[in-house]
């Protein structure tokens, strides 16, 4: 007799789950418990803590020059890094999808390095590389260009950490595009440049924007790969996450939480924007 048959013929004492497969209550229960205790409750603490400052206190913490500068640095440079990564990510994806050359597979795998490499390792490597006595830093210092310990260093680190996002969002879309639309465009008389500008790029636009948003989100919150190369001078080259840690060390929990809330809110907005982008892109297909 099947398990379902047994279930149906037994007297029902209380309303049993109507699911065909077993384990619903258990799996959902465990999932929710895990999420609630590890994610929701602590996040609640983050949101509640700044409330003890009151709205006025919250605002005065956020609007101190040091805090504003750190937020401006984290978000501003993240945006710049996202744009740089979008441009180069597009080129790299194009080369990987469209061209054939030996070693392409290796190049493709290397793109994921910033994903896989621990941020502290990336941090000290970038710092050593772009320091005035580093391999690259020493070349540039002759021209008066300083990268390490300046906001430029922050930019380089953010470009490093976010590159995989821009490449990997565009790549699959590019390969799915297929060549037919380009062939159609050519038979209709368009030059290669016109084909790329009027047909290919608009079709890639949603993916490029999505990649840019993801790159921005990651770079804005990044810590480990940046603090070694950044210089960390308050109001000059101090990123927001570092300021959070500094406030914690000073036992200013509420202040740290205030900045954390701002960053969380920004992430949330990003997430919504990304979802909006996805549904817009889906509609055009």
């Amino acid at each position, binding site marked *: 007799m099947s398990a379902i048959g047994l279930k149906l013929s037994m007297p029902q004492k209380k309303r049993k789950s109507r699911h065909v497969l077993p384990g619903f209550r258990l799996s959902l229960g465990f999932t929710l418990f895990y999420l609630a205790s*590890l994610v929701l409750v602590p996040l609640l603490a983050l949101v509640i803590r700044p409330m003890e400052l009151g709205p006025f206190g919250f605002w005065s913490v956020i609007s101190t020059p040091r805090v504003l500068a750190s937020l401006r640095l984290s978000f501003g440079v993240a945006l710049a890094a996202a744009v740089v990564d979008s441009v180069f990510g597009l080129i790299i994806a194009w080369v990987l999808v469209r061209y054939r050359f030996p070693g392409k597979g290796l190049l493709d795998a290397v793109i994921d390095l910033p994903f896989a490499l621990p941020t502290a390792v990336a941090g000290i490597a970038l710092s050593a590389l772009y320091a005035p006595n580093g391999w690259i830093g020493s070349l540039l210092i002759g021209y008066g260009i300083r990268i390490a310990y300046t906001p430029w260093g922050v930019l380089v680190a953010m470009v490093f950490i976010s590159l995989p996002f821009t490449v990997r969002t565009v790549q699959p879309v590019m390969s799915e595009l297929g060549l037919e639309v380009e062939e159609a465009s050519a038979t209709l008389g368009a030059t290669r440049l016109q084909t790329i500008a009027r047909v290919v790029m608009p079709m890639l636009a949603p993916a490029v924007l999505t990649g840019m948003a993801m790159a921005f989100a990651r770079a804005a919150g990044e810590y480990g790969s940046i603090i070694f190369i950044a210089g960390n001078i308050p109001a000059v080259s101090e990123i927001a996450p570092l300021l959070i840690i500094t406030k914690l060390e000073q036992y200013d929990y509420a202040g740290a939480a205030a900045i954390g809330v701002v960053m969380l809110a920004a992430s949330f907005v990003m997430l919504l924007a990304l979802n909006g982008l996805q549904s817009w892109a889906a509609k055009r297909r």
Partner: protein
Amino acid sequence: MTKRFSKPTEDPLWLKLLLGAVAISFIGVLLLLPLALVFTEALAKGLVTFWYAMIEPDSLAAVRLSLIAAGIAVPLNTVFGVAAAWCIAKFDFTGKTFLVTLIDLPFSVSPVVAGLIYVLVFGMQGWFGPWLADHDIHILFALPGIVLATIFVTFPFVARELIPLMVDQGRDEEEAAATLGATGLQTFLRVTLPNIKWGLLYGVLLCNARALGEFGAVSVVSGHIRGVTNTMPLHVQLLYDNYDYAGAFAVAALLAMLALVTLALKTLLEWRYADELAASHRH
């Protein structure tokens, strides 16, 4: 018949060379140079110095701590990932999309914020701080805190891998097993698990790599006590800040090797088991 022009879907040669050169040099300078530097600096003072840096007691302690933290976080997150994927893929209920968004949350949160939230709960000025101090329980600045922070930043990996995979695979086989009288556990072990094994492995691989390499979140909760509460990445920072470059890069090289192995395994899995991995991986 000679063709004097390229196919309509091919870029002209000059463009190919230009873009190719840009792509390769960008990747080379941005990604490969730092990697090369890690290994170069690690071995700069010779293999012997490298070896001593590795077996130095504080380094070993850091390795041990990293392995323990990952050893707790990864299995727990795997169980979570399986449970979440099971209920999302095999059942219908309201709030599913919300649940999936929730699971993706750690990816959009800064690692420092991830550590911060646990300080707000368990720290001396946090919710449970005084109570914990009274009972002499140490969460922060000790292993439990480190494990918690690690769990937070890595729990989406297995779930994100399994959910699309199991949704893609559908419920038919499990339903067949149910009609044949199998219990939930039997169904899972004999029917589901073989189908998801490569996706599961892939997710565990990524989860593990991130767990061993996590820096920001752990940095906030750890207390940085040398030889006691420093994971490998934190130890790297400590050595670097103290100008012990040979030591810092030695441990960093170890972590970099781990990253390369992870990348190699990841590529291998993607290549050979493309069909069994989540739909999102099929290029």
